């Protein structure tokens, strides 16, 4: 089962108005130093929120399952991390 299909199983309430709760602070570490490390956020994020596209990290915050791994795992502390605002984000039926 592909990750897209896994995420499709979940209930999400996207925060269209508030925008992304995850922000890559500066594009430079991702372009430069992190290239040699393989840009691990694009692999360890369990919801594949982060992708390397056209020379920058894209943030598909609407798929975020709010685990916090990127906050701890970014080798350059380059992700400004918040929970989504109340009433937004993932809602589990089972958990």
């Amino acid at each position, binding site marked *: 089962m592909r990750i897209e299909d896994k995420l499709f199983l979940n209930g999400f309430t996207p925060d269209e108005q508030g925008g992304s709760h995850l922000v890559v602070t500066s594009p430079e570490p991702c372009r430069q130093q992190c290239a040699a490390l393989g840009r*691990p956020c694009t692999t360890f994020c369990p919801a594949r929120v982060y992708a390397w596209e056209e020379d920058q990290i894209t943030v598909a915050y609407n798929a975020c399952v709010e685990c916090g791994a990127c906050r701890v795992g970014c080798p350059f502390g380059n992700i400004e991390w918040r929970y989504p605002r109340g009433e937004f984000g993932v809602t589990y039926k089972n958990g």
Partner: protein
Amino acid sequence: MQPEKFEAIVVGAGPAGTSAAYLLAKAGLKVALIERGDFPGAKNVMGGILYTRPTEEVIPGFAREAPLERPIVEQNGWLLTADAAVKAGYRSAAFGQEPCNAYSVLRARFDNWFAQQAVEAGALLIPGTLVEEVIRRDGKVAGVRTGREQGELLADVVIAADGVNSILARDAGLHEEWMEDQVAIVVKEIVALPAETIEERFNLEPGQGASIEFYGDATAGMLGTGFIYTNTDSLSVGCGALLSELVRTLTTPYDLLERLKNHPMVRPLLAGGEEREYMAHLIPEGGQRAVPRLFTDGMLVVGDAAQFCNGLHREGSNFAMVSGKFAAETVIEAKAKGDFSARALSGYAERVKDSFIMKDLRKYRDASRYFERHPAFFGVYPEIASAAAREFLTVDGVPKRRKQWKILRDVHRRRSLWTIARELLGALRVVK
């Protein structure tokens, strides 16, 4: 307008926070339980096994009413290689008789029920509300600021039960950011299967449950585990590894899960099942060394937020509940004295220290680091165990004693007996 004032504000309606809120409300305190999910449990994830006795300490008789899945009568550990499993397990009729040792639960259901008990005891539940930071007054924590308009709430004491990401304790300066080897990422799926199918596959009486923990190939050699827990009409299937291992190896956790689900020893257990939900969660794995300062003026830290988790025994919800109970007891004492200073709240840390929470964290304080430095336990040792068992159980006319010598020679060829002895002793030392 003056913000509303409570005697206690509990942030986070998981097992730690709800235990605290429930006991404080029962003791007659004016308590608010703030939860960022639409309902308690909406954001909450664990494997998950709930242990009966620690839960009984907080809410006696819960098993009669709470939404539980199955009592766990059988626990298994499987050491996986690519195409084999060395299995160990324990099953007991006692585990199936009340009070059962443990139950599988689904947190979205259990936490919601549990928080409802706190509400019935008198706590004010405020769902759908994110707490963003603590409010300080005169150098003390005096409340919280939520994301809502005019969202300030004041309290004599704030209990930070906001989970592994531990926003409030960090904001209050009780710890820095976790290191990447102090948390694990676990991903999990709910795979629906009919109850009878589950009972047949796991050899269970109707309504009873089993658990399997997977080691070795389950995490592609990384420090971590996989698991299957039986729910009423679904399986919880998951796996995870230390974040530092995932960062280093550039492994994707969902690929790891697919790999486990398709493992030849695991696949038949899941056959025909339908995936219903996918989730991910950080597990505090820092052990004793990562435990932050547990209290400050006007604030206590409980549960995952305090790194209370014993990964080796997959215990966490019990630590959460008991720490929530300790926090409530401490706050009730503090209220009687009318003193919520750090000194008055220090009894909480004493209670934690004198309990199984700190004793177990202390016992295993070096375990995670040792196994991270000795990846053989997740790679070559499962292979050695499998090869030895296969050789010994293969009937081919070779006399058994010769087989034993052959096994020993083969083991030595894969890893010297000296190294094995040294590593096993080392492992024994960190778990003894």
